[in-house]
């Protein structure tokens, strides 16, 4: 079920939240929409879900316009950022909400709920608890099971991992990928976290100030961003030593004797990698290396890089 957004425009109080956004997203793929705050990504998601009405353009599912369908009749379900679990219903009843609306009752409903809870890594002992008695991660899993219970064609995810701590985020990220693959779902996932977007996406959509900045495979966009803005949204860029308008990813710089001269300002351990800030002739640049850099603040070092990793952008970008 292909999701096509055609020339979508939306204005709030005179401010363009979305400006002529067109993109076609294939079914059964994981699409991440990235952008900084206020870039229009959540507005886009709410338009697809049917909570907002666009001022211009059309949303099509398999070629059929769904603009006139109210949210409750669209074959998409949303995983909300704050979960929006119904506080008066138990976890199992939350999951059973959509199947009940479809007329499923009794033992069949019980089996379906148990299966869905198991699919997201929860057992039925948690099913009788109210949302307030569940942890953040458990609430997120219940919300995912609830969204899946209505058997949507597309799952819309509004920064679903933003409120979780890092280990839980990684765990749920893997769960989302598994669920998507097993069910052949189309997923539209809004996030501002490049790591999350790069890890999850088959297709990456980048928005900036309401405009579509880039669409493509995540690795390709990371390595060859079409603009400086997109490049910076997807990860850190640093100036190439001695060049004013050439950029490179910090992990593509390496410390090597005989390279471009520089002096170490500081070093920092980031856990799985190290970061070195180096003062060079043209200013400062950052080097990221997988292990301890073997230098300290004040040391004179040389910097080397592979010319194929250098990025040049048109001035307008």
């Amino acid at each position, binding site marked *: 079920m292909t999701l096509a957004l055609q020339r979508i425009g939306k204005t709030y109080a005179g401010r363009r939240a979305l400006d002529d956004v067109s993109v076609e997203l294939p079914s059964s793929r994981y699409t991440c929409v990235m952008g900084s705050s206020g870039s229009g990504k959540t507005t886009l998601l709410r338009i697809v*879900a*049917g*909570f907002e009405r666009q001022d211009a353009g059309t949303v099509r599912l398999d070629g059929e316009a769904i603009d006139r369908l*109210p*949210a*409750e*009749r669209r*074959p*998409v*379900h*949303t995983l*909300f950022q*704050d979960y*929006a*679990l*119904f*506080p*008066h219903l138990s976890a199992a009843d939350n999951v059973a*909400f*959509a199947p*009940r*609306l*479809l*007329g499923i009752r009794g033992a069949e409903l019980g089996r379906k709920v148990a299966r869905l809870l198991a699919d997201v890594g929860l057992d039925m002992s948690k099913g009788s608890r109210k949302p307030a008695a569940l942890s953040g991660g458990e609430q997120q899993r219940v919300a995912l099971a*609830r*969204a899946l*219970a*209505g*058997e949507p*064609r597309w799952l819309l995810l509004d920064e679903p991992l933003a409120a979780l701590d890092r280990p839980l985020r990684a765990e749920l990220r893997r769960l989302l990928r598994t669920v998507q693959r097993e069910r052949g779902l189309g997923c539209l996932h809004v996030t501002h976290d490049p790591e999350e977007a790069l890890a999850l996406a088959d297709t990456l959509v980048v928005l900036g100030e309401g405009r579509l900045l880039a669409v493509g495979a995540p690795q390709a966009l990371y390595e060859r961003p079409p603009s400086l803005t997109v490049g910076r949204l997807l990860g850190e860029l640093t100036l190439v030593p001695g060049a004013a308008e050439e950029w490179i990813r910090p992990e593509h710089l390496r410390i090597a004797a005989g390279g471009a001269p520089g002096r170490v300002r500081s070093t920092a351990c980031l856990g799985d990698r190290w970061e070195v800030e180096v003062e060079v002739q043209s200013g400062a640049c950052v080097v990221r290396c997988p292990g301890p850099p073997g230098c300290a603040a004040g040391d004179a070092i040389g910097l080397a890089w592979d010319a194929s990793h250098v990025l040049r952008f048109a001035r307008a970008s």
Partner: protein
Amino acid sequence: MRGRTLHSRAVSLSPTALARAANAVWWVVAFGVPLAGVVSLAAAPGAAVGGSALLAVGADSVALGAALAVVALALAYPLARAVSAPWLLTCVMIAPLARAIGALQLGLAPGTGAFALARLAGDAPLAALLLRVRLRSRPQSWLDAAADLGAGPWRRFRAIEWPHLRPAYAVAGALVLLLGLGDATTAAVAGGGKRYTLALALREAVLLDAHPRRAAVIAGMLIAVAVPCAWALARGLREAARGRSGREGRPGRAGLGVLALCVLPIAALIGPALAWPWSAGDELLLSQVPATLASAGVAAILGAGLGCAAGLGLPPRWGPTMLLPLALPPAVYGAAWLTVAQRLGWGPGDGLTVVALLPGQVAIAYAGAVLAAADAEKLADSARDLGAGLAARARWLWWPLMAPTGVALALVAFAYAVGDAGASAFTSGPGGSTLAVGLEIVGRGGEVGVVPRWALGLASLPLLLAGLAGLIRRP
């Protein structure tokens, strides 16, 4: 997918038609008929209106209302910091008639002083209640930051708390002023003929002087004040419902003195109420209780149901329209509905009282529902996203979530209807078929011992209802 679509389509058609029908009925009851009544009054033949006298009453009424609003707002802050919302609401629900009789029982002579005390005993808790709603979203982190930077309490209040509370002060000021202008009962009882409000002038123009054109001019003046105030109320309500991420400050104690002042008139009723023997006046008022409870009950249930449905279902742009009946004094509804009903051959009585009270009841419930449901917008989106149409959302989401709020709002509306003598003075007919109107008449007839007893009864009703609401809310 197909099953889901068919199911949703089946339930989504009739609620739309129902909503349109309810909308049409609302416009007729809340605006159409009252407007027709005012026009009919204006078109009636009669003597000259006496514009200068009316303007003098209007100016006097506005000046006193404004002065009382300023005092009520000044008292409201400490009261809001000291007293919890249920207790403030209980104070607000006490009938103005009971407070007016209580002010006289304190030994105050009828006039400005007794009127002011009776009004302030209700206005200060009302303003405090509105401030308290706003205080729930108090920006504690900003206050902490200001304190950290060396700002003292007064500077913190001026720089942070005052701008935050200003919308609530504006709404409270507008509402207190409107209530002052529209209060005929307190002016009639505690004012003792020395203090007039526009609403009392309207009542006398219709019921005593039979001067419909003057009544139309007064109603027009009240409507002219009410329309912009309804807009301001709607805006304030939206502000109050927004941004609840703050934290209330520590309770203060200074407001307990203000609370004592507010309950003083009611406390003054206790002695005479218990001391005076049962008399014929008691029997007369007792006979009016069943009809009063029935009409108030019907108006409250209808009002709470319609108001909650409107609060949950209507978009915010409907706010001013829904809140206009709250800004219009009950006396305007009473006079207008009486006029129209007489033209239609419908005599005064309980039915007319219910209809005249209904717009105000709906507006109260609407305001309460908007405030209570502000946090639930996300849940409604979530239910829609899962395929719940209007009927399914009402059944599975709103009913279980909002039933306690609906019951509480129905109880508030019920207390308001039982204590009302503003609209029912017109619609209950000669002799008064409702308790509050009967009590006012008996009081004027000199049954001095009966009056405090029944006024205390009226004043105790909100306390009983608050207790009942507490029991219902208990799991």
